[in-house]
């Protein structure tokens, strides 16, 4: 497939042995001498005024060494609630004790007096005037009111009184939309291109539906944990399980008013992240506060239950979506109105609503999106944040359009996909992306074109797109006297990225993969690195690694020219040595010899440096097909086949890339079929693996992955970020397969058996 000798190969990962022997050190495995155990005191109510916090009993318990509250936070940034709690499990204080069980006992001895307030958990209820206000009284206008107000403003600005009648009429019209005054809004975003009304008017088929996607937890296997040690000079060391040690360093500095250089963050081996491991105040800040107060190292480790109560999961949302197309299959317009459940803080991926556009030529599009407060914890990124939700709505509706006009769902998508050179919404033109190649590849691999179905079986297809981010990073590479090379950098390995970096450097230095080792530094020692999220690492650090290796290569050739007394033009670096191509008989010198020689030169050792920040990325497509069988009596959906293709640009390690695809697909499957954080009057009611079911090996068949490689111009060897795309289409893939099997469109996830049974009973009504 390629002429490369190390990149593009299925090589075992660099962390293989430590991961299979239990030697890898995760956050909870760190145990400095004298370490105390921390425990966070949490609200027992989802919405309540705090009348008092009494720590006196807890202080008396033998073994308790420190108790902290919001009074201990110098910046005033909310770490612990003071006057009011907004969700069940919100932190109120933290304790440190000599034993984990003593810390827990002490936490239970802290007396909190509450005045319980009304709770709102549903976004569609929260926007109504009857809902309790969670964070002040801000209201925002819905789409129609926005349009009318914009017209009123235009008329009033343009004229000195002649339009008064029209303005009065418009103001009267505003009143018709009083239900479009939304309460509890945390954020909003609006995008418009073309004229959707015109597009719908010209369409032969228009479909409109409301999709409901639940809040789900990233469910990384390692719960949040940090170990902090503050010494008497004020220096703070934090062993943090995080995707971004440098972001944690600045977060702690800002929250606690500690100078940046007085904080050293040591990233520990990460037990999964998926976007949910960037939080600063969840455990890191409490651990530092406790350690400062106790004068001893403190570990704060969440239980799984605490993860569900106070993690930062993926937001649920409600998306109203409308699509219009001609009878011969051209999509003319799409409009969406989305309400994202941002919980007690703002955020919640509302900007991802525009992903309802997909990879299609849609001339008219309008998107209005709102973040809505509820009595839940805040949210964070989860693998392609916001995309699975928006794409679920968009790709489900596309299937319904295809059915209405009688077109094959794959052909319908192929016909509408953007092509190289098409104008793109953000400006410029579409680069070469394997949209069609990837969809065709999955259709071929799954046997779509001659698919067979027995009773109660169905096939579903969907595609999702995502573009990797990039960010600043630095890499050093040193070549040693034994010919080995050592990489030094500061980015967290996110399941295979260290391996990709190592392969790239071995390729350029032409040395065996096994002779290159990689070491991650802490924030005191390593060059700055962007966080390991947004599929950035292979793109960013891969490019950085290339630059570092090329820099080392320059020094190697310089040394060889000196040593062999020739011009660099006559030299070639290959097979771990430098060869004088003009010599007869051939003459060469190994990297080890050059590294040894370098120590006695005036120019010094072989050290390559790479520093990189950004280049434009190229979108990646994931296309998936599922074949399912639905038992009409039990409502259970069994997956018979699940095939996933992805345009990865170039697979630096195909085994790791397959692993990313397989893992992402199964997470998407789970979101579609199983997972849902459920909330009652007093907050989350399923904070554990018995009630919040994630898939096990017993739930699924083998996922077949198909790698498509259409190189990204700026990626290392053409590589694109691969982690996030595979989750994006799976929700819709599953829903489309179930629709095909039972003839009923389920618009509310997850597609649990009871929902299917009810839908069949009601003949499609109320699904």
């Amino acid at each position: 497939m390629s002429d490369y000798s190390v990149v593009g190969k299925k090589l075992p990962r660099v962390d293989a042995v430590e991961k299979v022997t239990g030697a890898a050190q995760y956050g909870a495995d760190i145990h400095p001498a004298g370490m105390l155990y921390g425990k966070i005191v949490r609200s027992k109510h989802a919405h309540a005024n705090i009348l008092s916090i009494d720590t006196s009993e807890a202080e008396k318990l033998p073994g308790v060494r420190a108790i902290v509250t919001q009074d201990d936070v110098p910046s005033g940034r909310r770490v612990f609630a003071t006057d009011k709690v907004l969700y069940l499990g919100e932190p109120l204080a933290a304790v440190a004790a000599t034993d984990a069980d003593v810390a827990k006992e002490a936490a239970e001895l802290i007396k909190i007096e509450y005045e319980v307030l009304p709770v709102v958990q549903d976004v569609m209820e929260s926007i109504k005037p009857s809902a309790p206000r969670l964070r002040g009284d801000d209201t925002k206008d819905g789409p129609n009111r926005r349009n009318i107000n914009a017209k009123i403003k235009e008329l009033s600005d343009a004229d000195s009184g002649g339009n008064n009648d029209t303005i009065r009429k418009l103001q009267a019209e505003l009143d018709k939309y009083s239900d479009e005054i939304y309460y509890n809004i945390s954020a909003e975003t609006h995008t418009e291109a073309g004229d959707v009304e015109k597009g719908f008017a010209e369409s032969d088929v228009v479909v409109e539906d409301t999709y409901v996607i639940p809040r789900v937890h990233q469910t990384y296997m390692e719960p949040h944990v940090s170990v902090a040690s503050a010494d008497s000079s004020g220096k703070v060391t934090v062993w943090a399980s995080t995707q971004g040690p440098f972001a944690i360093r600045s977060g702690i500095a800002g929250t606690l008013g500690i100078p940046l250089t007085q904080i050293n963050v040591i990233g520990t081996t990460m037990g999964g992240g998926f976007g949910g491991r960037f939080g600063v105040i969840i455990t890191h800040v409490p651990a530092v506060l406790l350690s400062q107060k106790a004068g001893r190292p403190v570990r704060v480790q969440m239980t799984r239950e605490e993860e569900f109560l106070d993690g930062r999961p993926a937001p649920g949302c409600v998306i109203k979506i409308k699509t219009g197309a001609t009878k011969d299959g051209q999509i003319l317009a799409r409009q969406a109105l989305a309400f994202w459940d941002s919980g007690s803080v703002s955020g919640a991926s509302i900007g991802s609503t525009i992903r309802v556009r997909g990879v299609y030529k849609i001339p008219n599009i309008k998107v209005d999106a709102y973040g809505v407060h509820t009595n839940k914890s805040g949210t964070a990124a989860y693998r392609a944040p916001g995309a699975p939700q928006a794409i679920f709505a968009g790709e489900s509706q596309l299937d319904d359009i295809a059915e209405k006009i009688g077109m094959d769902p794959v052909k319908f998508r192929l016909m509408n996909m953007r092509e190289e050179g098409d104008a793109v919404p953000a400006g410029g033109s579409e680069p070469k992306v394997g949209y069609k190649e990837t969809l065709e590849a999955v259709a071929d691999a799954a046997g779509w074109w001659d698919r067979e179905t027995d009773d109660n079986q169905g096939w579903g297809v969907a595609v999702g797109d995502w573009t990797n981010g990039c960010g600043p990073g630095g890499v050093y590479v040193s070549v040693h006297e034994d010919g080995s090379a050592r990489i030094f950098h500061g980015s967290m390995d996110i399941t295979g990225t260290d391996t990709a970096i190592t392969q790239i450097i071995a390729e350029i230095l032409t040395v065996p993969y096994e002779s290159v080792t990689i070491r991650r530094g802490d924030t005191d020692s390593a060059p700055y690195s962007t966080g390991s999220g947004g599929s950035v690492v292979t793109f960013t650090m891969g490019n950085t690694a290339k630059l570092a290796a090329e820099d080392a290569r320059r020094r190697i050739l310089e040394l060889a020219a000196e040593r062999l007394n020739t011009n660099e033009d006559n030299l070639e670096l290959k097979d771990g040595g430098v060869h004088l191509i003009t010599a007869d008989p051939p003459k060469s010198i190994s990297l080890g010899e050059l590294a040894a020689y370098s120590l006695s030169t005036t120019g010094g050792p072989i050290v390559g440096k790479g520093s990189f920040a950004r280049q434009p990325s190229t979108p990646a497509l994931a296309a998936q097909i599922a074949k399912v069988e639905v038992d009409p009596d039990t409502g259970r959906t069994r997956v018979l086949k699940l095939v996933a293709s992805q345009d990865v640009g170039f697979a630096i390690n195909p085994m790791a890339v397959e692993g990313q695809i397989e893992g992402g697909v199964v997470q998407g499957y789970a979101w579609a079929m199983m997972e849902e954080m459920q909330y009652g009057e007093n907050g989350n009611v399923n904070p554990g693996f018995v009630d919040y079911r994630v898939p096990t090996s017993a739930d699924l068949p083998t996922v077949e992955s198909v790698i498509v490689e259409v190189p990204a111009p700026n990626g290392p060897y053409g590589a694109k970020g691969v982690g996030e795309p595979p989750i994006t289409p799976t929700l819709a893939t599953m829903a489309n397969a179930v629709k095909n099997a039972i003839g009923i469109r389920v618009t509310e996830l997850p597609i649990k058996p009871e929902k299917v049974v009810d839908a069949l009973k009601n003949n499609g009504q109320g699904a």
Partner: protein
Amino acid sequence: MSRSNTSFGLQTSPKHPVSLKVNGDEHDLLIEPRKTLLAVLRDTIGLTGTKEGCSTGDCGACTVIVDGKAVTSCMVLGVTASGKEITTIEGLASEGELHPIQQAFIDTGGYQCGFCTPGFIMASKALVDENPNRTEEEFRFALGGNICRCTGYTKILEAVLQAAEEIHTNS
């Protein structure tokens, strides 16, 4: 919020003498009755390869082998394991040689973040020791007590099947 990281929520009480044989080494310990086997292994003995993922026996990350059977060590009180023979992930490789199951996880890419891996390997070992001659479906079902969030299980199953075949062939 009823469960702590390490105990069953019991109150402080006097420590008990306990003898554990872990990976061939004898440990005579004094432990509180409320401490789980997981807490004893990790905090008292210092074998941190066994992981704590849920503390409720549902994820399998803390799986160790006790007298030949795979158990979730967060569901066992340390005092009740006295006199028993315990194997943890640290006891699997011998004389620098990885166990075939460990090697198979490397060869197939059967792990990613690695947090569930010790539990998966120990659960797989107990299954393979009992009977390596199982179908993929049987292994899928039998490993249903272990959760992995990264791999989607495809490569874990590959690893277990590869190791089981090797062990079956050599037995």
